[in-house]
């Protein structure tokens, strides 16, 4: 059972930073709350008392999103369901709807924020592989002599290990910025113990763009989750495939390389097998999901309608 003495709901960033920096020891920032409530139960943390909660979800500066310089700046209040219901986000971040559909369920997605998912820094968070694939950076704000100071950290710098980030005690995540990659095909692969409401054992995000002929990889992004302490971008495989002729054989060979990236401590063999299948499926589905290009695989000599 989770109890607290006070529950703050500041409506602007300055108030929030002031309350947060003055909050008693042991207080907690709270966003969607979908993770902390199940955590404070028997078998996990048990009964937990938090002096003060500072809830960020009513801070108006954290709402909405903007697009500039090829980047999408998602306010920290962006929830997972937005990736399914907001047409602009679907267009700009083509792998996110596929990630979102596998994340929890429709109801929890209405509350659970993308920023909160990254802040939890779980090695099996659904949000970290697409964040890595989209070159995510987090915007962190704090008060410095009465002024609001912000800094940016890439997601791979921000997450340092399971449950550990570089978020400082007086900081609040205000936004997550991602590459705007309209026109790419996106996909997300995930396996857990059941379909809905399940934590990943492993997951994989892909973004692919073929050239205008649909025959060559123009650009691609691949990232894995659940196979190590931090999200993992498969840059070597990306470099190998970029400019290559699209064929099932090429994809198969690239997929096999991914198995060596598995660094998790448990169920290594299983994860190696899963990762090979995931990279293959992720690339094929992302190719198929491109909005404007029909891909031709070389090996079969036939047009596969994406």
């Amino acid at each position, binding site marked *: 059972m989770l109890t607290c003495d006070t529950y703050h709901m500041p409506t602007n960033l300055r108030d929030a930073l002031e309350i947060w920096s003055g909050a008693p020891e042991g207080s907690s920032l709270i966003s969607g709350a979908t993770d902390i409530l199940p955590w404070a139960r028997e078998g996990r943390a048990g009964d937990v008392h938090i002096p003060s909660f500072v809830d960020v979800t009513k801070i108006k500066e954290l709402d909405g999103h903007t697009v500039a310089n090829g980047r999408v700046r998602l306010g920290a209040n962006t929830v997972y369901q937005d990736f399914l219901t907001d047409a602009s986000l*679907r267009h700009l971040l083509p792998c996110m709807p596929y990630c979102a*559909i596998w994340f929890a369920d*429709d*109801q*929890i997605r*209405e509350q659970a924020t993308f920023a909160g998912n990254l802040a939890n820094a779980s090695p099996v968070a659904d949000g970290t592989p697409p964040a890595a694939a989209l070159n995510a950076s987090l915007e962190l704000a704090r008060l410095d002599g009465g002024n609001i100071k912000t800094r940016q950290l890439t997601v791979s710098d921000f997450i340092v290990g399971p449950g550990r980030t570089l978020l400082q005690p007086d900081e609040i995540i205000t936004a997550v910025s991602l590459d705007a990659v309209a026109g790419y095909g996106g996909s997300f692969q995930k396996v857990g113990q059941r379909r809905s409401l399940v934590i990943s054992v492993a997951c994989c995000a892909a973004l692919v763009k073929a050239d205008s002929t649909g025959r060559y990889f123009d650009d691609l992004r691949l990232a894995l989750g659940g196979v190590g302490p931090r999200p993992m971008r498969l840059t070597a495989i990306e470099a190998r495939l970029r400019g290559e002729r699209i064929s099932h054989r090429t994809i198969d060979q690239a997929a096999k390389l991914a198995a060596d990236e598995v660094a998790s401590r448990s169920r290594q063999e299983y994860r190696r097998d899963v990762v090979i299948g995931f990279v293959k499926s992720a690339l094929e589905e992302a190719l198929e999901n491109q909005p404007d290009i029909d891909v031709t695989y070389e090996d079969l000599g036939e047009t596969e309608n994406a």
Partner: protein
Amino acid sequence: MPKLKIELDVNGRKISRETDAYKRLLDFLRDDLNLTGTKEGCGAGECGTCSVFVDGKLVKSCLMPVAKASGTKIETIEGLAKPGDLTPMQKAFHKTGASQCGYCIPGMVMAATSALRQNPNAGIEEIKERLGGNICRCTGYTKIFEAVELAKAVIAGDMPEDALNEDAVGDSYIGHNVRRLDAPSKVSGRLRYAADMKMHDMLQLQVLRSPHPHANIVSIDTSAAEAMDGVVCVITSADVPDDTDGFGVFVHDQPIMARGVVRHVGEAVAAVAAEDLVTARRALSKIKVVYEEIAGVFDPEDALKDGAAIVHDYAPDNVVKHIPVRKGNVEAGFANADIILEDDFSTQQVEHAYLEPEAGIAYVDADDVIVVISPSQNITHHRHMLSHILKKPINKVRFIMSPVGGGFGGKEDMIYQGMLAIVAMKTHRPVQLNFTREESIIASAKRHPSRVHYKMGLKWNGEITAIQFNMLSDGGAYGMSSEGVMRKAAILSCGPYEVHNLSVDTTAVYTNNTPSGAFRTFGGMQAQFATESMMDMAAEALEMDPFQIRRINMMKIGSRTHTQHTLTAASLDRCLDAAEKESRWENGTPNVRGDKRSDLGGDDTRAPCTLGARFTSGKNSDKERVA
């Protein structure tokens, strides 16, 4: 504790209340506003019994701190229709029989309502996906999906409104869709389960449970807990008469609370009754129990070995019950066999996972009658046992069965009603205990884990000549329903097949694992898993069709059962005919047909689950597109 001012709109009513800062929206709706149609099934966002609309978006109210709901517009199950009326969705649930225990149904109706609000044209796969956050344990979902599709058609005008009315019934109810009498109370959220009931001046009870599987209780110091503000009483086994303390379905081996020794993790050791839940929980941590851990036994085979830890003094061999069945001459049967197959089968512990966690209320009425209200599946027996334990005449103990939000055998054991009764007697105040989901899992009985050693002799023509069936079951720390489960497992052991020579032994033993008890089929499942697996393996060994070997051995009119009862009716022939036809069974030995069986797949089979139905739903394009 500091209060929070909450102002919001609930079902069209403006509400302004002060409440505790830590409360969840679920607690606020149920405790502060008495809107108990919103249920708590897990408290962890897994089950969906607490789904409500917040500003038009469906959320799980167990995951929402109430502060977040301030300034919003809330819609609960109670607000969907006007009093006395039902929405088309609720009527559709009523029509299709989409409610059994009913505990998940308010949440299901909310999720179904949300699904069609989000997409009135949602196809069945999208409907399933949108209901993916809600769990039902009774219905199997089929009737729920039927209801959503029916409501969808009526709302869209594709079917007339009277399609929601009850089908006409002719001379017989059999073969007709008959509506459940209690369905309106369930689809509207009006039915009150034990945790939904409130009484004036009621205390909340919380239970301290053993962290050890086997330990002597050296001492229990409750003084610090009793000294806390708001704590009204703390009870232990010292509050129960020691010469009559003991309950169980067959053998009365379980004390109301651990008496001198704990025998499994999660056994009740003490309980605190307080003015509110938080105080009761905090008081638990003030109770000091000194344990002396002792050797335990955790494997049923180890329990039978010499020198094994003894779980109950009355049973030094750790045997709860052994049921032998003998028929014919097994040695002669095996001697007469052309082939003898031998194998081992095991099944695991299973939790019932009813959506309603255990809950109950007790009070003492003005005539000194101790009244216990709970979703007990066995109230008459509980009443008799409690009257004996409390040394009260039977007319001074009353059990009221509240609506059971799923039982499946898991609510047959009197694991908490005794504590409630004792607190009510000590305080003369009503007292309520609502289990958490975790507590329900740790403290309630499970399906018996079983191991079967099986030996089957057959003729080349498929006829069974003899069976030796030996089942060892882990009964856990208390007897509960083990005896009955072993009887049923023995009676059903060799399946619906006529076996002239058989030797069957089923044994349940005590261990320091979570107690095993009643669970749907009552031992039949474990036995049939072994027998039917054996039949398939025999078909493979004899290169026969699995239906054929079953028809050769099946019981018919005039057959004698394993326990020597002569059958005057039998229907397995018709059962097999129907199963063979409906499954489009491809005749032949199971292991020689490869992976391209003709009987897999087809219109009436379910494809593997996937997600993303909404990406293509309602679009004209034949391409799957998101962006």
